[in-house]
């Protein structure tokens, strides 16, 4: 039994070391608790198909097309909750553990006590395939992004300016304040 467990851990670590996908399956159960969920799984063939349909005439789409040209997969899980504490620290810890595999390094870790937001960026630079993983967690929202392949971080960050529909939550207004003020 122990040997099987060790073999499984080695296989998982080895897989991640070769640039395979971060396993996000355990997060699926959070969808039932979340008020809003976004689940995007774009592996090799689907990614190529989607990129083929991106227009060169649209500047935003052209940027994305160029950015994803060398990628092998994009996986996004976003959960927004009504209340705090709907997801467990162990849900995030499980992803962190996978990202401790050889080849991955944490390049940024931000912890904000003020708004309880934690953000981590992991990068995989060695080996034939690169990789990027982003974990953003605050009490009411959890977002995990896993990208397989080499990606330009500056270009990706630049695309963050474009805005994400239904991802940026409006901050709750203080009681008594109206929309027009």
């Amino acid at each position: 039994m122990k040997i099987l467990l060790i073999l499984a851990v080695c296989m998982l670590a080895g897989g991640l070391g070769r640039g395979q996908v971060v396993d996000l399956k355990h997060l699926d159960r959070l969808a039932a608790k979340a008020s809003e969920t976004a689940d995007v799984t774009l592996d090799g063939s689907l990614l190529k198909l989607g990129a083929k349909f991106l227009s060169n005439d649209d500047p935003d789409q052209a940027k994305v097309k160029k950015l994803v040209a060398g990628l092998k997969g994009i996986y996004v899980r976003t959960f927004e909750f009504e209340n705090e504490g709907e997801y467990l620290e162990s849900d995030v810890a499980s992803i962190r553990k996978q990202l401790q595999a050889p080849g991955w390094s944490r390049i940024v870790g931000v912890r904000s006590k003020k708004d309880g937001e934690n953000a981590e960026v992991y990068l995989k630079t060695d080996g034939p395939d690169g990789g990027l993983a982003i974990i953003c967690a605050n009490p009411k929202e959890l977002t995990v992004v896993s990208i397989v392949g080499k990606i330009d971080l500056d270009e990706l960050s630049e695309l963050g300016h474009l805005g994400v529909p239904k991802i940026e939550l409006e901050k709750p207004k203080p009681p008594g304040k109206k929309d027009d003020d």
Partner: protein
Amino acid sequence: MSYLEDDLRMALRRAEPSADFMDCVLARVNQPPPPEPSWWERLTVLLRPPRLQWVAACVILGVMVPAGVQYRKQQRMRAEGEKAKEQLMFAVRVAGNKLHRVQQKVLEMGRMETRL
């Protein structure tokens, strides 16, 4: 005399035509020529024999069915492609947005540390 000579004589003996032979020949000669078929009739003649009709039906089906299947396949591929494109745009924007926020936080912290 051999049998062969008898046979030849019998075969080559003079025979008188029937009484109405000349009338038949003249009637046939005086018949008006059949009307010239139009181009459309000439075309449809090709499909008139039953076997050719079946061949034509099979050819049409053989062209139409694969073309229809191909069209459906392309439609499905287009729908899947458009969906994948939207997902891709969304995923890249989420990733970019989160990365941008992290960068902003890091910059904010850097500024705060500089002030201190």
